[in-house]
């Protein structure tokens, strides 16, 4: 079953043409990695799938919901949809005034209307899944970048999403912290949640993804098996990109 379907999507920022006709279908439980040079539109596409950005033309269908530019940021249908989509940001975007446990449980309390006890029980489980069950009462600024990012993953996981969008979640981290986050990601993939991951981590993509989409200048140039794309890219752009990354 297809959970995300983009058809000829175009997106402009002012006069800047960022997405130039993106078409992409993602099946349920699939793990898709998006790679490509900076500025090629990867993050923008991810944000469009969650309606944080609205598209100019084409269509996006997510879990049965058609996203059009007429739908406002906080309309009821978008909120319902976002409950089922997790989004993890490059800069973590944790709430600095809340503890790790509160960060993870606030969505359950506010959006899913759970009582405190139930919400915190689920939140503790999520923290355990990301290997942070000993840090529930730490504030974000008391945690390392890698730990903060894992709290952010737990915050998404706690909502029991059908789809998770992860936007360069290791790009802001020191090399020694990346490993823990990637291991957490592998566990997310094993949970059977559909994931679309923007990343530069080639080894992770090769090991853990079902598919790689290679973005270049607002278009998808290649789409297929990770090993094949990394080792035998067809386009010269992908060849150069992966060569530089190695």
């Amino acid at each position, binding site marked *: 079953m297809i959970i995300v379907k983009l058809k000829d999507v175009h997106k402009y920022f002012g006069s800047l043409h960022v997405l130039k006709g993106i078409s992409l279908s993602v099946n349920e439980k699939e793990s898709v990695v998006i790679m490509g040079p900076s500025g090629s539109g990867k993050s923008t596409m991810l944000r469009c799938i969650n309606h944080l950005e609205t598209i100019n033309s084409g269509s996006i269908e997510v879990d049965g919901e058609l996203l059009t530019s007429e739908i406002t940021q*906080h309309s009821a249908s978008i909120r319902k949809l976002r*409950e089922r989509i*997790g989004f993890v*940001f490059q800069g973590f*975007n944790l*709430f*600095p*005034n809340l503890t790790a446990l509160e960060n993870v449980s606030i*969505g359950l309390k506010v959006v899913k209307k759970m009582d405190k006890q139930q919400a915190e029980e689920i939140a503790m489980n999520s923290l355990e899944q990301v290997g942070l069950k000993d840090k529930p009462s730490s504030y974000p*600024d008391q945690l390392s970048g890698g730990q903060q990012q894992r709290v952010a993953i737990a915050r998404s996981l706690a909502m029991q999403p059908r789809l998770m969008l992860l936007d360069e979640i290791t790009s802001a981290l020191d090399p020694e912290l990346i490993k823990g986050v990637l291991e957490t990601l592998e566990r997310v993939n094993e949970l059977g949640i559909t994931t679309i991951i923007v990343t530069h981590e080639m080894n992770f993509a090769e090991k853990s993804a079902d598919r790689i989409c290679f973005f270049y200048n607002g278009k998808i140039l290649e789409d297929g098996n990770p090993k094949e794309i990394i080792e035998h890219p067809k386009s010269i752009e992908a060849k150069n990109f992966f060569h530089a990354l190695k």
Partner: protein
Amino acid sequence: MNSIGINELRYMLQGLSMTLRLWVVSFFFGMIMGIILGIAKSNHKIKVFRWIAAAYIDMIRGIPLIVFILVGYFGANYLGSDIDLPRFGVASAVLSLYSAAYLGEIFRSGIESVHKNQWEAASALGFSYVQSLRYVIIPQAIRITIPSTIGFLIGLLKGTSMVIVISLTDLTTASRRIAEHTRMPFLVLGLAAMVYFVLNYPLTKLGEKLEEKYKIKKGSLT
């Protein structure tokens, strides 16, 4: 010449009580209206509210408080000329409206200084606009605005003394009458000045402390 006795002191205490009532009431209502104005002015989607809030804030901030009190008092009297308007009601209404403008601007800047990524994180969890404000943005905005709110509170206490122009018996008005009555202006008004200072000084210190604390917090977040 009269000396300062128990009656004079009691009169001044009654004045002080009026000052405190004006202070608390106008801060309370100013706060409520200020939060609404701050939210309205920081909302870039609903332009009408934004425009109204901005116009109100700019207008009030451009008028001297003393003129605003006079306009409020005589204007209200003119409109309801057969009713004897309670001076306290008029003064607290004017001071509340005045506070609302300043606090509104403080809260507006607080809300806008919360990073955009906090809105996005809340949206991504499925929060509505109101839920985002209530659970994510405002708790952070309030922290940021505490020092400037305390600063305003100090100014507001001093501002209440301007009700002297409508002869409302607050600490300043009472002290002036006692000063004339006893012909000891330095002593009496000096005493009044001391009372204002004693009320404000702890707030000044608290404001400095919180500002320092906030600075450290902000530094460690980045």
